[in-house]
């Protein structure tokens, strides 16, 4: 569970101070698929960076599964990201020198998992995201949609309690976008995976359980359980 309280984030751009977040409070429960939406510059990516421990707020408090994550040392934050969070970037952020399989099992390697186990887990997760036949391909040999699936597989391989996705469909066509969102919905449905996803596409709303809309660094609207029943395209 994520509890963010009164988060502010002020950037200094030269002599000008930019207030990206002005006091955002948010709770995300276990198994929720929350969409954070808003116009460009509304602070949605900043919020996700803070929730993903990639950035620190100027003030406020963030608790994830009962841990005050802002009080952690840099080393502990790194371990927290490794073991508890999965992060999907807008532009895939794969390591170009590694194959799809290597990209996925890299974090398991860091955790010290035995080779047999991380190979099994990584192969299974790549199969789950539909890339069974592409495991030994490198980034340059994969389409945008496939790269994003590898990034999702990498984010999921260590069974994170929360999956954070920063506009994962921004660089994909509508067909690939839909397939990624379907995948997220299935993960949420089948595995009760908590997902927080940033998006600015209106049609993505139908996939989310809850939509939080940011405006000028503040929460504007919250639409509870927009999605009813199974995700689009699936029958109950």
């Amino acid at each position, binding site marked *: 569970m994520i509890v963010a309280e009164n988060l502010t984030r002020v950037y200094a751009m030269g002599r000008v101070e930019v207030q990206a977040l002005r006091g955002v409070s948010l709770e995300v429960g276990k198994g929720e698929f929350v969409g954070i939406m808003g116009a460009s510059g509304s602070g949605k990516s900043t919020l996700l960076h803070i929730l993903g421990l990639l950035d620190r707020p100027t003030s406020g408090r963030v608790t994830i599964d009962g841990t005050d994550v802002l009080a952690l040392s840099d080393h502990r934050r790194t371990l927290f990201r490794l073991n508890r969070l999965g992060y999907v970037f807008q532009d895939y*952020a794969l390591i170009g020198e590694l194959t799809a399989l290597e990209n996925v099992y*890299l974090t398991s390697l860091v955790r010290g998992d035995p080779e047999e186990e991380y190979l099994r887990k990584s192969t299974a997760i790549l199969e789950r995201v539909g890339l069974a036949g592409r495991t030994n391909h490198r980034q340059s040999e994969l389409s945008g949609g496939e790269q994003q699936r590898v990034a999702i597989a990498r984010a999921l391989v260590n069974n994170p309690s929360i999956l954070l996705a920063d506009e994962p469909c921004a660089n994909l066509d509508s067909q690939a976008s839909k397939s990624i969102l379907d995948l997220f919905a299935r993960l949420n449905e089948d595995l009760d995976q908590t997902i927080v996803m940033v998006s600015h596409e209106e049609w993505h709303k139908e996939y989310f359980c809850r939509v939080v809309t940011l405006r000028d660094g503040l929460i504007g609207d919250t639409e509870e359980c927009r999605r009813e029943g199974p995700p689009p395209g699936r029958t109950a």
Partner: protein
Amino acid sequence: MFTGLRVSAFLAWKSIERGSKGTLALTIMIIALIFVNLIFLPSIISGVVRAFDDQSIDFDFGNLVIEPREGDQYIDDAANLQRKVDRIPGITGTSPRIAAGVTYFYRGRNAASTLYGIKPADERAVTKIADRMVEGEFLSNGDTDAIIMGTTLAGREGEEAGGLPSLRGVVVGSPVEVVYPNGEARTYRVKGIYETQSISIDASAFVTAREMNGVLGLHDQASIILVKTDVNGREAEYKTELLSYGIQEDIWTYQEKSGGFVNQAIQSFDIITAISALVSLIIAVVVVFIVIFINTVNRRRQIGILKAIGISQGVIVNSYILQVLFITAVGTLAGIALTAGLTIYLTAYPLAFPGGPVSPDVEASAVIQSVASLFAVSVAAGYIPAWRVANEDILTAIRG
């Protein structure tokens, strides 16, 4: 710790395996050449020093030289002293020499240099002049009308010797007249010509001590006694040993006899070597720094991503250190191979130096020192840019 190193090694190897092969090969080649430069010049200088030492021991002085006490022209009772020294453990040979400044005459030409009177059998036990006969034979104990001389003194027909004494064309069998300091003149048949490549010895000549004693009216006297020891490099110990046996004459090590020149030369060479090593190491620092700097700057975003997905800064920095270690290790191995090739070639075809032929003398300590310093500067030069980028804020690094 082990897991972190395993991940660092994994990232380093993938980067090497799938990165630019051209850049890798070029960097390794530069490290190899830097290694050669670090080793080669000192090894040549060591070779020069060794050649000079060998020349001094084998042809000029032996390991130790016994000279008359201050104020005396000759060592008296030389045979007795020789026997005394011969009995000391570790002494393998002694050769008394009588030295006289003489003038040689041959076919109207003349030259002045030192003529030594020796006991041929004793001389063979100390110096290697007998092994360097290029024409004719070495002296025998009973020779009284024979002389051997160096190639410089013998000279060649129509060839100037560049300021050194030369009779310009003496060959084996030539009659050479020698005028001694006491005015006595003798004509000797040239029995042999030697070439040691020691400047002073090749410009000198030898007759038997029996002959020279007769001419100079000496009996059981010597100008110097050369002493050969069982091992080289322990001359100072043997000098102390000889003194402890109550020898009253002056005793010199070969280093002391030739000290001024060699020490000055070594000091100058040491300065040149130090400058050369410093320049090489600076080049190594710059090359490794640039390679890793460009590498890390180009992978700034990748480093940010690695940190974002939970890989610690230490693991990332270590992956670059391991790449540097790999490049340096392969570069050093290539450098060792190049150095070995050069050494083999120059041992087969030595460089011609005034003191004699010089081959590189690669000392294990120099190799260890070069490898250690190359690794140290490479790791330092690789660490700084890697740490700098890996220390960046995650989002700044990801944004590139």
